[in-house]
């Protein structure tokens, strides 16, 4: 009985979390502009969505900035994490505290500080400023995903590689990087998700003519309800769901293959963390 009540409570919370999304999805097939009425099934909003130039071009910008900023942030962040791992004392503390700043600051504060910087240095607001801002807020998350892997690393591996005749750069590339790869991948995915989902920082650092999906949605939603947004939400949610299912199936398969369960569990936590970062 208690168990039943407990379960019902969680189902209730799930209903609260999923109801708005479900409503959006149902109404994306509704052949009537007014909300409450059901005017029959239609795919009209999906057709209009794909014909909408603004939405399509902002989708392209979002993906372009997401991929580029994630890759650049991952490279700079991974190198930074290795450097931080090897520094000591005051220096390390100072760098870590500054790194935490964009993570802890309210997004709007990071956003306006970057906007002031760009306007102050007379850089034209647009693609470039958007990209620089996204790299900036992504790097800390990459560092924070890579650092734990470095802490687990056997520090004699690097020395062994040097003893066996590797150059420092070679040892880094052939020994360290492969060892911390899971952390790097987590960081990359996290950065990509954060970049795609970001609204506040993009809103302040973009210029006229350049718009990400979030910005386009905001300006459409401000004018009220638009069935095209419903169609877009449905596509995005289905896409995310498929991705999650694939990732989960792969994990389940790997676990069945007999790799140790702890590792799988750890990775699942990483995946959750990545998902959670998507806020």
């Amino acid at each position: 009985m208690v168990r039943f009540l407990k379960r019902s409570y969680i189902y209730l919370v799930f209903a609260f979390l999923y109801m708005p999304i479900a409503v959006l999805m149902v109404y994306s097939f509704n052949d009537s502009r007014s909300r409450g009425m059901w005017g029959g099934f239609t795919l009209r909003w999906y057709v209009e969505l794909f014909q909408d130039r603004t939405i399509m071009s902002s989708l392209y910008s979002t993906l372009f900035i997401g991929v580029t900023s994630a890759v650049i942030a991952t490279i700079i962040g991974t190198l930074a994490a290795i450097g931080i791992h090897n520094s000591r004392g005051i220096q390390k503390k100072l760098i870590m505290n500054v790194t935490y700043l964009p993570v802890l600051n309210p997004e709007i504060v990071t956003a306006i500080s970057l906007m002031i910087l760009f306007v102050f240095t007379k850089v034209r607001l647009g693609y470039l400023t958007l990209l620089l801002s996204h790299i900036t807020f992504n790097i800390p998350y990459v560092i924070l995903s890579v650092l734990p892997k470095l802490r687990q690393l056997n520090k004699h591996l690097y020395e062994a590689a040097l003893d066996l005749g590797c150059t420092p750069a070679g040892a880094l590339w052939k020994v360290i990087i492969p060892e911390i790869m899971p952390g790097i991948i987590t960081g990359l995915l996290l950065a990509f998700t954060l970049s795609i989902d970001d609204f506040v920082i993009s809103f302040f650092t973009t210029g006229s003519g350049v718009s990400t999906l979030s910005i386009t949605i905001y300006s459409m939603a401000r004018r009220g309800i638009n069935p095209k947004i419903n169609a877009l939400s449905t596509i995005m949610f289905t896409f995310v769901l498929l991705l999650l299912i694939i990732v989960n199936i792969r994990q389940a398969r790997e676990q069945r293959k007999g790799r140790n369960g702890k590792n799988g569990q750890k990775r699942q936590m990483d995946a959750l963390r990545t998902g959670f970062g998507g806020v």
Partner: protein
Amino acid sequence: MKRSTLFPYLIWMVLFIVVPMFLVLYYAFTVPTESGATWSLENFARFFEPIYLKVLWRSLRLALFSTVICLIIGYPAAMVMAGNAFERKSVVLLLFVVPMWMNFLLRTYAWLTILERNGVINVLLANLNLPSLNILYTEGAVVLGMVYNFLPFMVLPIYSVLSKIDRGVVEAAGDLGANSLQVFAKVIFPLSLPGVVSGVTMVFMPALTTFVISRLLGGGQFTLIGNLIEQQFLVVGDWGFGSSISVVMIVLILLSMAIMSFFEGEEKDVALW
């Protein structure tokens, strides 16, 4: 190992984190004059004008309100999820995180459809011959939007602390004669405090500084601190005042971080959650 790998980041960090912060400070503590700018606390003094105090009060009130609601809904949810009511805990946890993968704006926008005058709720009420409700563009709608968006921020830290509690401690309390209420009040809740503190901070801060939720669900008539900052930068163009509000925000954050680390002690890794 080499430390030189740090250099690209150091340059980036100074350029895009440190310099912008100092620029914000500069604009906050100066006022423009004919011959450049002069140091002044005028921007901070403006914050104490009645209209802005009202904005601050409203932001604090709504943020606090949503935090409390999140805690009331979220704590039991975290407890059930950490307990053994479900066989496949990871699936339940995953289901909890999935909506978070949706774009934040879309999640907020979804409520427009439901709360609108001709929206889902009112059509249902009309079908039952009940009078319609005006929920959209009220403070209630803003709080609802905050709770909906930030609830997982409350549940996940509490869940992660609760699921790490040693079962032995709980059993020992029972063996020593505590009833389940006492076990909760004297063992489980105190042990989960770090999670609660971290959850409260993670809900309160974004709720305090959001400008999207109040704009979309409040219809722009409920100016919060976030909206005020946005207006100063994008509409009014008063960078000084906008920066000074931001500085107040940063100070508030640092204070709450200090309180949090006081409760959390050593565990630095949890901070990301």
